[in-house]
């Protein structure tokens, strides 16, 4: 079974009932699949943009898992978030190669430019900042990912130009 993971947050355009209905369909599809918890969590994060409590509880009941176990899996993998996320997710690699080639400085520059800390979302909900451990792009360190795009050999000076690609007219104006 292929896993279709979408990062696009749709919770602003669809009602909660619609989203929960979509999750219920996913759960029904995966109910008897061994090892279904992680793929269902991934898809749920795609549907909601993050993993709200109501979705986690529905997944626990639907897959006949304990809520504590579901929460444990969500907390273990940094990919999962229980906080609402911005339209774009920035993940700065702090794996060994990226770290020694300036990943930490890149992260500091991003924090300063966006005015947020790791795990937080900008007030206009455009960016969420996170860290990651290795995308497998060590030869082109330091690397960062925005949504599904990998940006390599990034220098702090180039950051604004990269961020601008994600703040064009396609984004929703700030509230």
């Amino acid at each position, binding site marked *: 079974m292929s896993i279709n993971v979408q990062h696009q947050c749709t919770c602003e355009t669809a009602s909660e009932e619609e989203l929960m209905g979509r999750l219920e369909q996913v759960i029904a599809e995966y109910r008897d699949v061994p090892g279904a918890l992680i793929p269902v969590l991934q898809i749920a994060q795609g549907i909601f943009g993050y993993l709200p409590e109501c979705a986690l*509880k529905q997944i*626990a*009941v639907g897959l006949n*898992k*304990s*809520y*504590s*176990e*579901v*929460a*444990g899996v969500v*907390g*273990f993998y*940094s990919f999962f978030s*229980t906080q609402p996320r911005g339209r774009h997710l920035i993940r700065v690699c702090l794996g060994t190669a990226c770290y020694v080639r300036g990943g930490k400085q890149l992260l500091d520059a991003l924090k300063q430019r966006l005015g947020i800390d790791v795990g937080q979302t900008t007030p206009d909900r455009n960016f969420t900042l996170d860290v990651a451990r290795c995308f497998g792009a060590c030869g082109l360190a330091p690397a960062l990912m925005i949504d599904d795009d990998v940006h390599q050999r990034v220098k702090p000076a180039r950051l604004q130009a990269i961020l601008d690609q994600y703040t064009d007219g396609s984004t929703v104006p700030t509230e």
Partner: protein
Amino acid sequence: MINLTIDDRPVQVPQGATVLDAARKCGVDIPTLCYLKDVQAIGACRLCVVEVEGAKALVPSCVAPATPGMKVYTKTKRVREARKLVMQLLMSDHAGECLTCDRNEKCEFQALARQMGIKQNDWTGDTSPRKFDHSTPALSRDSGKCVLCRRCVTVCKEVQGVTALFPQNRGFDTKVAPAFCQDLATVACVQCGQCAAVCPTGAITELDETDKVWAAIDHPDKFVVVQTAPAIRAALGEEFGYPPGTLVTGKMAAALRRLGFDAVFDTNFTADLTILEEGNELLMRLKAALAPEEFKKDGHHHAGPLPMATSCCPAWIKHAEYFHQDFLPNLSTCKSPQQMFGAAAKTYYSRRIAKHPTDVFVVSIMPCTAKKFECQRPEMESSWSRDVDVVLTTRELADMIKQAGIDFTSLPDEQMDAPMGMSSGAADIFANTGGVMEAALRTAYEVVTGRQLPFDGLHVTPITTLEGTKEAALTIRGCVPEWSFLEGKTLKIAVTHGLANANRLLEKIKSGEAEYHFIEVMSCPGGCIGGAGQPRMTTQAVRKARIEAIFREDEGKTMRKSHENPQIREAYEQFFKSPLGERSHQFLHTEYFGRERV
């Protein structure tokens, strides 16, 4: 067989044995922490490392298979230093408040530090934020004392099928906790306490309520009554140095009297009462299912469905309320013996001694933590006050005896008081897996046929073992006229212990794969003798020893069947009237409610 050497001494072990098994076989003690025989072997804590000739790294002996020709060294300098370092690092994030800890002198972690000769610990650094959790009636949690061994996680998931506790977060932030590190009361926990039974430190314990009992004993106007569950007499001695399986019934009665209880009674009494109620309930359900015309002719309208399930175990009841709501009508409506005792003590007995129910204070000594939860259920208030006021575990009773300066081993054997201290052997075996079933059959079979249960020594041997789920079938012949509809019928029964086993049994019943008339469920492995309030550590060998002791207690009595107990007959004559009658329903039966899982 595999031949290897441990510290140059040859040893032979069967295929599949670990290095730890081999070491223990030849008398070499390797320290372990996360390892727990029959429960968990995950090689997580690294305290059991050994040196193996030819291996680059040290090897965790609890998961390393023994291989032919292996040369194992268990106490080289490298091994000693590695274990010490691991222990010191674990200690650096452990709230080592031994003097005030519930586990002081009975702590595996403390014993390991002593065994390794750790006199100081120079490792300091970050400590995890500490969280106390007293949100449930039975269990107390202190994350500061948790060493992340995961024994509780494994027991909760694999043995009980509940998974209320699970590792949350990652790396140094890891906590063994309910979902999102919230309080235990926020998740589906059945309060069985098996987590506390296997915890090697003071991170999970029963909620200590000994102070409440001292206060009641000290109170000038309270008439304090104590009941002891059948499983206590086969385990309490362990707290005072007796080997597992020692019966201390007489010394226990003497100790309770010296503690200052006004009446020393026995939960066994209401175990006998339970059999009369539950046995009759089973017969009514059988009649409704197998002879509906006759059932209606008798003027009855409703009886619950088959299979009927026992309802003595409060963790099983709570489990069913969370996870098997469609099965709630199948549960016997009988209260547990503990709750029947509370109701009877504050009605039938308080009337006999001319006291108001609110002046009688009922203390239970239970092998169980879930009983603390059970006595607080809102519906357990049939006597115009809490039917049972406080529940103590076997361990808490031992603590009180020690606090009072009573020299337990030199106590004389004393009897329990009349009338609620008298019981049959059938009541004793409530402590064992299969015991409630056997006790019920001893009475029900005799009611139906007028003859004794046709088993050697009255033991339904197939259901007395420690196997997870056990079955038996009993064909009924020679019925008395009233029960002739059962003539030639085969009664099918099943007995299970450990809630994960119960889940599997219920799946088989729901899918139609298996069909029974009566099932017994106990949450703790081995039944109440293996309850979470019993002296630690309850291994399979300890379970067997306690089970055998309980059977000795049963066989030592001339009165082996609940319906033969004259005090029970008197209680019906004077107060309860008849089994399943109006008074029974008011005081001895209850109802169940579905609970939200999340």
